[in-house]
């Protein structure tokens, strides 16, 4: 069975070349690896773009319905084509760089932010086989690149040469730096429970009876609490309401991307949704059983999953489960956004240091005790 997405792509290329009549083995190895890398990267980029576009629509649609409005519903069925219209609109927009901005850093910042948001996609598993790279460091790697995002945002805030932007950058930096701690603690809780940092192993570990083998229930109550810690910290990390201080519209206009327009703004926008997806997917992987859906477990009542459907169908089912869970968690983010007010800059630190960090430590200690007992 192929191990990773790269292998699958290789397999597909091989089959395709075989149909044409070329021998895949004669293609130089580095070329094969390079092609697989490029295709995997392109697939992930496309996926990020689709997720961002879909949630760009869903956000407005959900907002509309929650607020007793219609939401986008003119362009296409349910307004779904609104995204395409918006994409075209924003692509042809003028790209403005303020005269007093630091031109190089101003251009570099969105790229860094996107790099930070996009890097974790490398390790996000969609099913047992569908993952770009099966890093043994999985979670650690996924969380580490938030740092790049922080620097990118500070860079954007500083290079814009706008005081509100600088405020936004500083706020985000303070927020993300502090929220990495509870996030790390929540991840450690899971790591202690399953003994791995590798996302695939963590998910495989949650295989079993129905939903009770998922980490949320298996490590009850520690992993259950840790899930909330992780999700809230992730909300703060992806700057979503109630932690959207870096772009708090009513306070600092648009925060660090006040001066950005056109394509560069889209990159920030993409990164926000990419980060949201990463947080949701990580929550699903770490706590909610990843690609394990409740139904196959019911069918295979002996505690083992029987993918009688074969590798392709099982990959598809896993993908549906995984994406469904992630999308539900993203929907919760939208729901939060249209319900809650924003916390203040001191309260966000209070929440982190006095609520989430102690809670995370309790979870970690409890989970350690669990791990020692069993």
């Amino acid at each position, binding site marked *: 069975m192929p191990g990773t997405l790269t292998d699958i792509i290789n397999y597909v290329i091989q089959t395709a070349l075989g149909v044409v009549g070329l021998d895949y083995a004669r293609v130089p190895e580095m070329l094969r690896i390079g092609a697989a890398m490029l295709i995997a990267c392109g697939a992930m980029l496309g996926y990020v773009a689709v997720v961002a576009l879909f949630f760009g629509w869903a956000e407005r649609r959900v*907002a509309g319905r*929650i*607020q*007793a*409005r219609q939401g986008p519903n003119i362009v296409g069925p349910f307004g779904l084509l609104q995204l395409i219209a918006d994409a075209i609109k924003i692509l042809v927009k003028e790209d403005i760089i303020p005269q007093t901005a630091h031109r190089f850093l101003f251009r570099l910042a969105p790229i860094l932010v996107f790099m930070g948001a996009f890097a974790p996609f490398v390790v996000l598993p969609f099913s047992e086989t569908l993952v770009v790279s099966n890093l043994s460091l999985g979670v650690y790697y996924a969380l580490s690149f938030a740092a790049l995002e922080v620097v990118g945002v500070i860079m954007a805030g500083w290079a814009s040469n706008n*005081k*509100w932007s600088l*405020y936004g950058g*500083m*706020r985000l930096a303070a927020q993300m730096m502090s929220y990495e701690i509870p996030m790390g603690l929540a991840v450690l809780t899971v790591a202690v429970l399953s003994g791995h940092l590798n996302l695939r192993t963590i998910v495989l570990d949650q295989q079993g009876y129905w939903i009770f083998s998922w980490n949320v229930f298996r490590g009850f109550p520690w992993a259950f609490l840790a899930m909330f810690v992780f999700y809230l910290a992730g909300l703060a990390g992806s700057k979503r*309401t*109630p932690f*959207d*201080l870096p772009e*708090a*519209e*009513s*306070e*600092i*206009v648009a925060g660090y991307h006040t001066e950005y327009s056109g394509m560069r703004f889209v990159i920030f926008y993409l990164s926000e949704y990419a980060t949201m997806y990463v947080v949701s997917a990580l929550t699903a992987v770490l706590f909610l059983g990843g690609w394990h859906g409740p139904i196959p477990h019911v069918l295979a009542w002996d505690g083992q999953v029987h993918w009688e459907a074969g590798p392709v169908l099982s990959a598809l089912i896993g993908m549906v489960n995984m994406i469904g869970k992630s999308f539900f968690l993203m929907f919760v983010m939208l729901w939060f*956004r*249209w*319900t*809650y*007010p*924003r*916390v*203040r*800059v*001191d*309260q966000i630190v209070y929440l982190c240091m006095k609520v989430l960090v102690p809670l995370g430590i309790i979870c970690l200690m409890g989970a350690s005790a669990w791990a020692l007992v069993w």
Partner: protein
Amino acid sequence: MVQSLKTDEILVNMGPQHPSTHGVLRCLLKTDGEWVREVWPYIGYLHRCKEKIAEKVSYIQFMPYTDRLDYLASANNNLGWAMAVERLTSIEVPERAVWLRVLAAELNRIASHLLSYGTFGMEAGAFTPFFYGFRERETIVSIFDQLCGARLTYHYARIGGVMRDLSPETAKAIRRFLDEMDRRWVEYNTLLSDNEIFVRRTANVGVIPADLAIAYGLTGPVLRGSGVAHDIRKAAPYACYPKLDFKVCVGEGLKGTVGDCWDRYWVRMLEIRESVKICRQILDGLPEGPYQAKVPRILKVLANEAYVRTEAPRGELGFYIISDGTDKPWRCRIRAPSFCNLSILNRIARNCLVADVIMILGSIDVVMGEVDR
């Protein structure tokens, strides 16, 4: 200059184009990181010489201009101006007209407070209350459609009466709205007032002690939020208010200190309920009779002066008219509540966070049309 280089305080312009400065208020913030050391409000970006216009148009003609003072509470402004001119000219107003004016004013108070609820929520970062507030305000606006044919600048009161009688259908619509408002009010509180994040954002923020509020001449919910039970409708009753049963709502410091942002907000929420009560009483006890007194087309007024104060949604609205015997005022001075209330911003928005300045400004609830006149 050299000294200013060493400090780490920066001056930031908040406004005149800023999402939460209620129009075109410009605040200059002296900030030290997130901490705001001082706030200077700069006004005048919406100055339209309203008081000067009053000297150039007749008493009747100035009425539509008053719509545009506090454009969120036109009916209250109309009421004030009509009463001032009537006191100046000693015109007797039919009882029914008085009650209808108060009905309009109270409906408008609800509309204004609803908008305040929405924008305050929005300033706290919650978008949805804004739309809910606007949804109910829209119902009121539709009622005004039927009542006077306009949605924002009502021009409902006239010198000596009101423009149009209340039709039975409109009365029914108002009753329906009032019943719905009772349900929605609970929902508003679940969504915003009781939300812990919101409470944390507003409680103990921008506290105005009672003595300070009186010293600054604050009026309206801003004063009552500080625990001072001062309401012109009770303190110096006018129109039909003596015959109505309602309560003066004051801030009690339920979530924090008396006189904080949450109290001011809560006073507005309570006043919505009181106004609903008042509207019901008016609909029940509306006297029969004409709705317009006979008023000459061109008002000739003896040289005289009059000051009339009314309780607008934002506080004490005063019209001071001096007449010189012609059909136009010689001088008109408008005591706008928002203007006086705004004066305290510099005093209370010190040593707080940028986010607090927004909340304080929102809780004072200024309307720039009234501040700049």
